[in-house]
């Protein structure tokens, strides 16, 4: 294996990504994250606390706390940012060139993993630098210790992000995980890795983010200051925890920082080895840009298609001389929004075969189940099922390069964009109609109103994200997280009326959000039309 080859593979890919406008936006997000991860003592939200305590913002505490938070957030968002390295080579045709070089499949997947890692490490570096500024901005402890500040980023965050980098490459090389299914599945993988029980929080354990290394140390420091603090029964808050009313009232303890042991290093090394192993395993399903297909069935089907196409191509040429086109009557042109909606609908349902089993089964469940289960379980699942169909809204023109044709047709906003959204609403209605009928029968007007708003909100979210990101990934990730939150009964995020006792104001809030998203989608499309 040539290190030079690996280096250049990773370098070219890295440069290609960081020179994009989107990467600059991601870096700005990182600066903001560095700021948001360290709220002042009196704030409506906390990011890391144990019961009602947190550490003083010195270099050690800031480094450790933010490195864990950063690992958690960047491993999630970063996955969707970097999961396009192989796809880009496939789309641009560079992969075809690389496939003809002596570069091996293993070198390729390792190179792409390193490139992914370089991108995520750059983002982490920006967060770490923002932390230095934040220590002086919050000014709780002005003594700066570079090792205590940066070592957690190096030893905790970077191995976690190397894992993310390898997982992204693995997902890209496995055909089933390459598209929307992979984007949705990663949310669950990420949740399992973060929420998984890897061992005791009081005695320390090895987990991907390194919380099992840092948190026991923080527990000990907290207990030293507050003797009544019981690590066995303490509640650990990690993430953005917003208080419904008023501010958090936290007390602080002093923590001197990590004393890294050989055991700690060995634990982190295990994840690094695991990441490289996964990058190596990714080489097995990697098709090396051979579009001939892998399974025998697919190969046979494609061969039959190819043969038939060649037959037709051999039989026919471009034009026959005696064809006369009938001039089109100028009155035969009109608005035809209905036809456009129908055409968009056909695009949504085209190619779906076994997909219909889901809505059918869920429709039966909606008839048979008690009303409580219908709203809290059946509805979220019924509206999660079409996630991959909604995620195509607003992105098809970019993905299939049909923008020049459709954007030069009349009324690209009032006809095409509107039809796209309406077809998405039709999908919401088609997959949730039985639930709505149950609400009508039960006379639950609030649930019905929430359902109506949800039916409009989902395609609006998909369309806005699709138009702006020109990819279905953002919607697939955000919508999966939203549905997961709803199933977990997170009332403020209940956009469909599935959570018992969700705020009465939710339909109004999500209705307003729908309007904003539609305006955002229109604005985004308008920008594309006027480039």
């Amino acid at each position: 294996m040539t290190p030079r080859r690996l280096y250049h593979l990773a370098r070219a890919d890295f440069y290609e990504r960081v020179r994009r406008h989107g990467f600059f936006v991601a870096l700005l997000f990182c600066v903001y994250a560095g700021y948001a991860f360290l709220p002042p003592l009196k704030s409506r939200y906390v990011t890391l606390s144990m019961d009602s305590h947190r550490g003083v913002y010195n270099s050690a505490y800031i480094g450790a706390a933010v490195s864990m938070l950063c690992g958690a957030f960047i491993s999630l968002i970063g996955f969707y940012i970097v999961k396009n390295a192989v796809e880009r080579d496939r789309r641009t045709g560079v992969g075809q060139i690389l496939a003809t070089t002596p570069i091996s499949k293993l070198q390729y997947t390792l190179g792409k993993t390193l490139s992914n890692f370089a991108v995520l490490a750059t983002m982490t570096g920006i967060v770490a630098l923002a932390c230095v500024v934040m220590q002086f901005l919050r000014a709780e402890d002005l003594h700066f210790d570079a090792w205590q500040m940066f070592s957690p980023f190096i030893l905790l965050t970077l191995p976690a992000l190397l894992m993310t980098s390898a997982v992204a490459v693995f997902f890209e090389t496995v055909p089933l995980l390459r598209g929307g299914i992979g984007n949705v599945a990663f949310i669950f993988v990420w949740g399992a890795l973060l929420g998984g029980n890897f061992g005791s929080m009081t005695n320390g354990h090895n987990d991907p983010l390194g919380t099992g290394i840092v948190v026991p140390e923080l527990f000990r420091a907290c207990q030293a200051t507050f003797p009544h603090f019981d690590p066995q029964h303490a509640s650990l808050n990690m993430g953005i925890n917003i208080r419904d009313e008023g501010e958090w009232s936290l007390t602080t303890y002093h923590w001197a920082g990590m004393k890294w042991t050989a055991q700690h290093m060995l634990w982190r090394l295990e994840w690094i080895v695991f990441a490289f192993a996964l990058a190596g395993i990714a080489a097995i399903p990697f098709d090396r840009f051979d579009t001939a297909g892998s399974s025998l069935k697919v190969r046979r089907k494609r061969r039959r298609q190819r043969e038939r196409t060649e037959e037709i191509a051999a039989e026919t040429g471009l034009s026959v001389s005696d064809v006369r086109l009938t001039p089109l009557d100028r009155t035969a042109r009109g608005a035809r929004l209905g036809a456009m909606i129908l055409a968009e609908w056909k695009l949504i349902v085209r190619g779906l075969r076994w997909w219909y089993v889901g809505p059918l089964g869920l429709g039966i469940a909606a008839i048979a189940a008690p009303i409580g289960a219908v709203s809290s379980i059946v509805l979220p699942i019924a509206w999660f099922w079409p996630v991959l169909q909604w995620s195509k809204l607003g992105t098809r023109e970019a993905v299939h390069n049909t923008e020049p044709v459709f954007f030069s047709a009349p009324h690209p906003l009032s006809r095409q964009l509107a039809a796209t959204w309406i077809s998405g609403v039709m999908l919401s209605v088609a997959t949730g109609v039985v639930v709505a009928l149950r609400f009508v029968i039960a006379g639950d007007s609030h649930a019905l109103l929430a359902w109506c708003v949800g039916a409009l909100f989902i395609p609006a979210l998909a369309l806005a994200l699709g138009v702006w990101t020109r990819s279905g990934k953002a919607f697939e990730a955000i919508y999966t997280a939203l549905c997961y939150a709803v199933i977990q009964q997170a009332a403020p995020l209940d956009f469909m009326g599935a959570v018992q006792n969700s705020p009465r104001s939710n339909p109004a809030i999500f209705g307003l959000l729908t309007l904003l998203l539609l305006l955002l989608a229109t604005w985004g499309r308008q920008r594309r039309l006027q480039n």
Partner: protein
Amino acid sequence: MNLSIQHVGKTYRRSVRGLDDFSLELGPGVLGLLGPNGAGKSTLMRILATITKPTDGQVTWNGTNIVKSPDGLRAELGYLPQDFGIYPNLSAQEFLEYIGAAKGIDRAACRRRIDELLVLVNLTDARKRPLGGLSGGMRQRVGIAQALLNDPKLLIVDEPTAGLDPEERVRFRNLLSDLSGERIVILSTHIVSDVEATATHIALINKGRLIVSAAPEVLMKKVEGRVWEWIVASSELNAVKSRHRVSATIRRSDGVRVRALSDAQPAPEAQPVTPNLEDAYLMFVAPATDEASTKAA
């Protein structure tokens, strides 16, 4: 029917000029837009197709500004872009129906038009096959069909013969000629022979600027007396190439027959020959462009 391009310019980010003070008046007929890669042809096509907005100047279609009111032109526009995309899961028939809906064509008229177009581009047998399974040439024919779907008054085709085999190319040229009667056809390409066969008017473009715009015969007249052919030894070919703009070479048993442009007789045995469009193109657009265009003007 009139398309008026007045002092149009397009500046991209970092002050890159894609098009610079471009003016042209067009009526019915085929305009062949010729220029080297990166000359600004596609930028001009995209501006005329209402996809890109110019940063300077204005374009009017029958007196209406297409930037301020693009939908008037869009209803009468057929556009075949250089990189033509398709939806792989749709059949040719379904794809054309979709485009027909986007263009606002009445259902019955659209169906009839699709039937005729599929016959025209010889895709009747493949009309129900997914586009993803079609060859590049067949997809290009679907592209041609979609551009003609709304019986456009302005037809813009950007590198339309890419992907077509030689026979299909000839047929497509004939099709363009047939269509040009009562409409404006703009054919952008760097295949000079495509333009030579179809264009009633030619515009040469380089570095975003219009170099010359004239009927083919006028253009070739400007090169008359400057095109020479003679035979040189193979060993002298490089020296000849460095001194003259060589438009063609043919190897023969007695050496290499060279066709080159020169104001004066380049060699005692050189004979003047009838110029073709390639010679004219070379005269105006080749590296010694400035010198050549000044002299020709």
